[in-house]
């Protein structure tokens, strides 16, 4: 397997297209021939991160790199940032509006679910500047 890289741009509040980038990434991973279980974990992590960009920020981007050993996804946004990352990692904690909840999201499971589905998760967030999520899913078992 060769290394594959790419980038998607994500528009905030564009709920009609929410999840398109992650679905495209999933399709790419399937074409490459990545294990089905790893595809699912990667796609869920990417999708949760993408939904956070759509829900909370004006815009962001998702970069991905697929190597024979691991998949790395970096999602950056220019949103309001996360005031308290520990609190945001708590299952059920959410600042989503009722409108977001009516769309089936914003129940406070996003970041904890990313943590569950990735092998490494780094979150860098500066209030007023934006947030960067760096996610790694290992392909080869150590």
């Amino acid at each position, binding site marked *: 397997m060769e290394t594959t890289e790419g980038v998607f741009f994500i528009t905030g509040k564009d*709920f*009609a297209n*929410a*999840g*398109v980038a*992650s*679905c495209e990434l*999933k399709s790419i991973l399937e074409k490459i021939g990545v294990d*089905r279980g790893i595809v*699912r974990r990667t*796609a*869920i992590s990417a*999708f*949760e991160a993408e939904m956070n960009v759509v829900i909370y920020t004006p815009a962001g981007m998702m970069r991905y790199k697929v190597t024979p050993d691991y998949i790395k996804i970096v999602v950056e946004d220019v949103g309001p940032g996360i005031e308290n990352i520990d609190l945001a990692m708590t299952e059920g904690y959410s600042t989503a509006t009722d409108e977001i909840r009516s*769309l*089936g*999201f*914003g*129940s*406070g*499971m*996003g970041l*904890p*679910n990313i943590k*569950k589905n990735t092998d490494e998760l780094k979150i860098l967030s500066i209030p007023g500047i934006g947030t960067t999520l760096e996610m790694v899913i290992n392909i080869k078992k150590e």
Partner: protein
Amino acid sequence: MTLNEIKDILQAEVLTFKFDENMDIEMVCSTDLMSDVLAYSKPGVLLLTGLVDGAAVRTADIAHVKAIVFVRGKRPSKETIVLANEKNIPLLATKLSMFEACGRLYVNKLQTSIEAG
């Protein structure tokens, strides 16, 4: 149980032209919260939901949901149906409530896809 048997049990209408009547279904996830599908559901399930927008189909695609049944007589847009055909995810619609739809499937031995916490 096949998807066709589920269609009959739920008195459901098929909305997509992609419909494998022999598709095997063993487990069901019933929720309007897509976050719960992503966080708790196992792959290869049938999703019962009242959420009819494209996010339901994309969530199903991401989480390896096999097919979706919309409950309470809700109907998705044409765009959502087109998307489901593209993703090869059959869509069905029933007038039954979520409660009754789940009850009918439960007595027919289908299992939950979400483990009790």
